[in-house]
């Protein structure tokens, strides 16, 4: 994803790291969430814009952006699949870039502009990507779907902006929205129902319509 070239990390290191993370929850004596010195949770005020609407809230500093959206603002379209940045169900668009909202704390989003699935379109006013997912049956149970749709909308913008991926062969030429590029870039969004083949067809249709 965006910014990955800042990290001096190859695929093997990444896999080793992921394996260690996977084993961690089994270890005794992992770090515990710390309340404030008086035993009470530390709260902090945060102001941000969600789907064009301004919100100011006092939030527990441990609250993720995901839980702020779901539990505080009741925007439950953004899903919690793993709470660890492993599945992509919580993907939202923050200041134009897609992120896993479970991996950022709400207090880190002061002044941010967040777009969630509810902001892209509504049942009677669908975003073209939402309509394409319906037409191509790019979902089944629907739980990963908002994340897939937010991710695909932002992913196409990344391609337009010329940001390369692991499968980009020519770093000097404009990046093309090929199926291989899309499959690579969407791989952070897991669909256990296995609608991948249809999702790529849905995104392709949106690309073709955009010309």
């Amino acid at each position: 994803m965006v910014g990955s070239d800042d990290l001096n990390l190859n695929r093997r290191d990444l896999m080793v790291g992921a394996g260690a993370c996977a084993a961690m929850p089994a270890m005794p004596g992992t770090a515990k969430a710390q309340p404030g010195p008086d035993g009470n949770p530390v709260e902090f005020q945060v102001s941000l814009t969600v789907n064009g609407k301004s919100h100011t809230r006092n939030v527990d500093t441990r609250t993720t952006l995901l839980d702020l959206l779901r539990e505080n603002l009741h925007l439950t379209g953004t899903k919690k699949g793993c709470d660890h940045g492993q599945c992509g169900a919580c993907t939202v668009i923050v200041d134009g870039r897609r992120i896993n909202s479970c991996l950022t704390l709400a207090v880190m989003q002061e002044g941010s502009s967040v777009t969630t699935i509810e902001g892209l379109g509504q049942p009677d006013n669908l975003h073209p990507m939402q309509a394409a997912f319906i037409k191509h049956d790019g979902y089944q149970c629907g739980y990963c779907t908002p994340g897939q749709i937010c991710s695909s909308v932002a992913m196409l913008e990344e391609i337009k902006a010329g940001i390369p991926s692991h499968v980009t062969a020519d770093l000097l030429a404009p990046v093309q929205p090929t199926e291989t590029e899309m499959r690579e870039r969407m791989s952070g969004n897991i669909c256990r129902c296995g609608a991948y083949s249809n999702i790529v067809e849905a995104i392709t249709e949106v690309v073709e319509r955009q010309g």
Partner: protein
Amino acid sequence: MKFDTPAGTSPIDQLKVIGRPTDRIDGKYKTTGTAPYAYERHDAVPNQAYGFVLGSAIAKGRIDAMHLSDARSAPGVLAIVTTLDTPRLGRGRMNAAYLFGGPVIQHYHQAIAVVVAETFEQARAAAHLIRVDYRQEPGKYDLEAEAPHAEPVASDSGEGSGAPHEARIGNFEEAFAAAPVKLDESYTTSDESHAMMEPHATIAAWNGDKLTLWTSNQMIAWGKGSIAKILGIPAENVRLDAPYVGGGFGGKLFIRADAVLAALGAKAAGRPVKLALTRPLIANNTTHRPATIQRIRIGANPDGTITAIAHESTSGNLADGKPETAVDQTRLLYAGANRLTALRLAHLDLPEGNAMRAPGEAPGLLALEIAMDEMAEKLGIDPVQFRIINDTQVDPEKPERRFSHRDLVGCLRHGAERFGWDRRQQQPGHVRDGRWLVGYGMAVGFRNNLLTKSAARVRLDGRGMVTVETDMTDIGTGSYTILAQTAAEMMGVPLEMVNVRLGDSAFPASAGSGGQWGANNSTAGVYAACVKLREAVAAKLGFNSAEAVFADNEVRSGNRSVPLAAAASGGELVAEDMIEYGDLAKKQQQSTFAGHFAEVGVDAATAEIRVRRMLAVCAAGRILNPKSARSQVIGAMTMGVGAALMEKLAVDTKRGFFVNHDLAGYEVPVHADIPHQDVVFLDEVDPMSSPMKAKGVAELGICGVGAAVANAVYNATGIRVRDYPLTLDKLIERLPEAV
């Protein structure tokens, strides 16, 4: 309605709505984030508190003490319920492990406490302040080590797959010894996790002694009975509601700890409680598909005729758990006069093994269909032809019992032609495309069709709207849409005039979602209710119901036609009925069939495997909605690629748990792993199955597909791997020298 004679012609056969590739009616909710899943029902009940479940840190033993004072005094904590202050609770339907209560630990991450607090963060922080004194006991965690002590056990998966501990026809040993061409090999499959995207989640609220659970469950009526049994309360005091279920794959067939602990937490806190199992808890706290060790022996004549076939499978489970019924399909799939199947079960202290998508057939065909590929090679016969030679139209164990409809040969012939199977090089390791070694593989898919009763209620209102109510679930399967299509077809209205309400235990009990029985049975239940509603409408409007035609929002007979809505002008008409089955399925075997084809590339230097093309040709009766049915099949094919190439719960055989218990460590296919997938449904109906003439398709798609991939890897490299998943470390040392 009793279905005990083959279906004749009915309004369903008009195919104005049924059989069309309709977009899902719930699509606009799922794609906009407005479909409510269990944890998201803010509006269901006010004043919800948050629960956090703590799992055991040992796999086997006892808890001597739990130190709660820090947790109790943590900010926001409302209640803590521990396994020590709860007597061991009863078990629900099909639960092998106890979900909660008592000091005994049966498996790692078994639930031992729930903390209820004002916020999620507070409940989580407090849960980590609980200190537990464990007394660990030695356990058995290694299937390979325990397999020699496994006992013969008969089993029924409860999902359409079953076998006696041993089934013998003819004299296998003699025939195998005499066979001119023989194969005797062992195959292993891995422990796998359902890894559905929506974690198990429940909101529980008590109103006096009445309990409501907004939950995520595939089988509402089973769940209602089970939670009542577990909590020791009357079933009529329980209501379950699950209008949307974020995937299940068998992992949500039965009540799990989320529902039990939400209910106990809500009781203790005196407030509604919502909780979800955290992702790292799911693999060990809930169920998984058990690993298997399978031995297959096949003997054949040089012309390819199988004369002897034996399939034995060993798996492990907790006490009261069942074996994986991996040999079931071998009793029905191929001809052969001398046959043997056997199931053995070893005791393991790992988490409970239970149903996962196509239990039995999914791992069974992974093994059998490699064996068939190996046997075809020994015989020098094309693998497609070898299967066709050994096709059977009767139950090989009971030749007087025919298949109701079996066109496996059609699947294979059509598939071979469409895939370009004739371009396959029989000699493995001989096709190069740049750095890739390229191979083709195929396998047969097979899964039984199950008949089970299913009820529904149908309402007609004064606007002519038809509302379907049943406790059927839509777990991604397309239930909303096919039930709406059924009602629209029967009542002669367009799809927009049908509302479907699902997943509420207050509605009539349906077949539920599992074992690929959902679509055929639940639509048949709606069919039955619609037949009654048509009679009520005809009576109200003064028509002879046998002659009345329902079409275009009207009821017609002769030259008289009346708007359908007029029948409800004086008040809503309501009809309820149930489909029940006679013994048609006993008289004839009902199964579904597929030919799976795959092309893979294997990197000549690194052994990285890429699936390049996939095709499934399916024969599964009438396809009610080809669009959503195709999605079921491609999704199952995707999970089959996972089983073939990456999915494996890694067992810590010393400490007794699945180590890779999250979605990074447990690898499932992602976008980059899956190419375009091609699916063809043969145009057929099966009048023996139900008035819908449909059969299941959702699990057929996973059956055999992994073996097609494995056989393609063999064809690409000449390396036969019999130990799933086919990870590159099993190939890399044996790769052919790079040219």
